[in-house]
């Protein structure tokens, strides 16, 4: 049974022309990692927040199914979600410096988090874990204020605090994109190691395909709040069919300098009111794309929401 199961999740913000997330379904099993890929504005952060009960009060969430550990959370209140975040769900944010209160010492905030989770007695254990993930001299350095520590150090604390409660689900929203590239790979290594030790399900959000290639088992591509393609890592990275995924893959810079077709850039927020959200930028676009919102259909090894791609795939294979 899947640890996390979501069906037809839609999130709308007031004043928004389109839902930020529309009809997303996903499942993650314990021990596996799902990567959600997409550019900014694609709804990936909203999706992550919705799965942790952290959406703005103004946001409207609809789904036909939302289960963690088999528990139906469609009607769960704020209290229940908070309880879940204390015991079962951990969240790592994109910007380490912004995820800590700038005016309080790290130790005070870490203590707050630990006692909230009911692990106040496990501080020594946390110190060990911090030392293990490369946070040197934690007793002394934690007495500092957040801005006195580097982004990599702060993110190590965030990760340690996130995993020490032994969550069933770990959500990481762009955990490395605010960091230098060398620090990035250290953090990814730590995440990978901790994940393989604990039998948890992980949802990692990224716009960086190299990160995805390193940590993911499955990949889901979001565009304009909709899933446009999903499948196993190898399938999506290797033989994606959706023109958007293809464009993303092709725009990864290569050492041989051979970049293929770049995606036509586009102002964010200019999504069409109906039809396929990607239609205005798509090279395979046909009239139907502007009228009908395509559903996910199996094409080659993945599921993709692109009927024209299906027909061209049939022709090429």
């Amino acid at each position, binding site marked *: 049974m899947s640890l996390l199961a979501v069906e037809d999740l839609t999130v709308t913000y007031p004043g928004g022309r389109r839902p930020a997330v529309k009809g997303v379904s996903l499942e993650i099993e314990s021990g596996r990692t799902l990567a959600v890929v997409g550019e900014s504005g694609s709804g990936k952060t909203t999706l992550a927040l919705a799965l942790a009960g952290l959406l703005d009060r103004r946001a409207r969430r609809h789904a036909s199914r939302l289960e963690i550990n088999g528990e139906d959370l469609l009607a769960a209140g704020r209290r229940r979600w908070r309880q879940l975040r*204390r015991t079962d769900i951990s969240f790592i944010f994109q910007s380490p410096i912004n995820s800590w209160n700038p005016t309080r010492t790290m130790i005070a905030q870490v203590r707050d988090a630990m006692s909230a989770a009911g692990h106040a007695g496990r501080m020594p254990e946390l110190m060990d874990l911090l030392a293990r993930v490369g946070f040197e001299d934690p007793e002394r350095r934690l007495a500092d204020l957040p801005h006195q520590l580097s982004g990599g150090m702060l993110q190590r604390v965030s990760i340690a605090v996130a995993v020490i409660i032994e969550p069933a689900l770990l959500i990481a929203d762009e955990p490395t994109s605010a960091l230098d590239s060398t620090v990035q790979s250290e953090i990814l290594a730590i995440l990978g190691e901790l994940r393989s030790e604990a039998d948890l399900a992980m949802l990692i959000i990224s716009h960086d395909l190299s990160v995805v290639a390193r940590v993911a088992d499955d990949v889901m591509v979001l565009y304009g709040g909709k899933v446009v393609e999903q499948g196993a890592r190898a399938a999506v990275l290797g033989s994606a069919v959706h023109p958007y995924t293809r464009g993303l893959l092709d725009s990864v810079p290569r050492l041989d300098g051979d970049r293929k077709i770049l995606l036509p850039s586009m102002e964010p927020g200019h999504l069409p009111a109906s039809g396929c959200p990607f239609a205005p930028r798509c090279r395979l676009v046909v009239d139907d794309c502007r009228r009908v919102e395509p559903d996910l259909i199996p094409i080659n090894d993945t599921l993709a929401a692109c009927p024209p791609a299906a027909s061209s795939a049939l022709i090429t294979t």
Partner: protein
Amino acid sequence: MTQGRYPEVTGPAPGLRFGAGRLARFAKGVVWLLVVVLVAVSITFALSRIVPADPARLAAGLEAGPEQVERVRQDMGLDDPVMVQYVRYITGLVRGDFGDSIRTRGPILDDVVEALPASIELIVVSFTIFAALGILAGAAWAYWPRGVHAVLLRVVAVAGSAVPVFWVGLLLQIFLAARPDWFPLVARLDFPVAGNLNHEAAGIAEVTGAGLLDALIARSPSAMWEAARVLFLPVMTIVIHNIALTIALTRSSLADQLDREYVRAARARGLSEWRVVVVDALRNALNPVVTMLGLQLGWLLGGVVIVEVIFSWPGIGLYAFSSFQSFDYNAIMAITVLATAGFVLVNALVGQIYPLLDPRIKEAR
């Protein structure tokens, strides 16, 4: 009037916050205090000497003949050159001598000391109430931005700062205190001018001069009730006018903090709403509010004059008013000096609160 509407934070002069060590900072603070007071004195002194009103004439009384006026003028040293008078006044100040009042003919310092407790009581009580209530209401508004209370608070925030304080006081008198059995119309009506509370009638000893405090010392509930009753309308007048800015600023500051990522991160770690909103966000939101409250105190030093006049509250404000009326320039200048010194000191104290709210400031020193 202008209270918090100055967008700039005054407080200790820029540059004062940084310095080598505590002592140097303290010394700089003292110098700053002296400079500000000296400038304030000099301006009032200069202006009081270039205008035609004749203090000697006033001091001598209306029936006095020209010779008498001349004698008074000599006695008061008013025929000396202005610079001599100025130096004489400043040296007097340094010795702690504010001169004699033309009106009461006693040392001004004695008058001030006698009137001060009543004013301090009024200011402290009003300030505590509008600061606490304002922060509470503003925080609630930021946290629950919609609803009937939000509309209500918006009206208070807009109207409160536009309403003239003297008019509020007058209206409260007309419409609430028209029933003198509810509230004493004027402090003086029920209680003769010996402190805000008639200690004799209330049966308690006068220790500090502040009614509430004296009643507390005497452990007399009935006297405390009386003292609170007398305080109610003047305090309410000040609160209505001043709470508006506190509410509006707390709201916008806290709303800004609640939108920050660290708040969401704290929630993600499972912290209770109380911890997230009060311990983390509100504390950070209070920084600009504290600055504004410091400035409000500056306003209060003047605003209390108006309120004391309306309610015949026998404090320093009423004393100042009488001095204005009788052109008692010695008293006017003494009040300027004391109020300025008080305001500078208060702002220096406010400067001490910032590091408690935001330790990054302490570290920057």
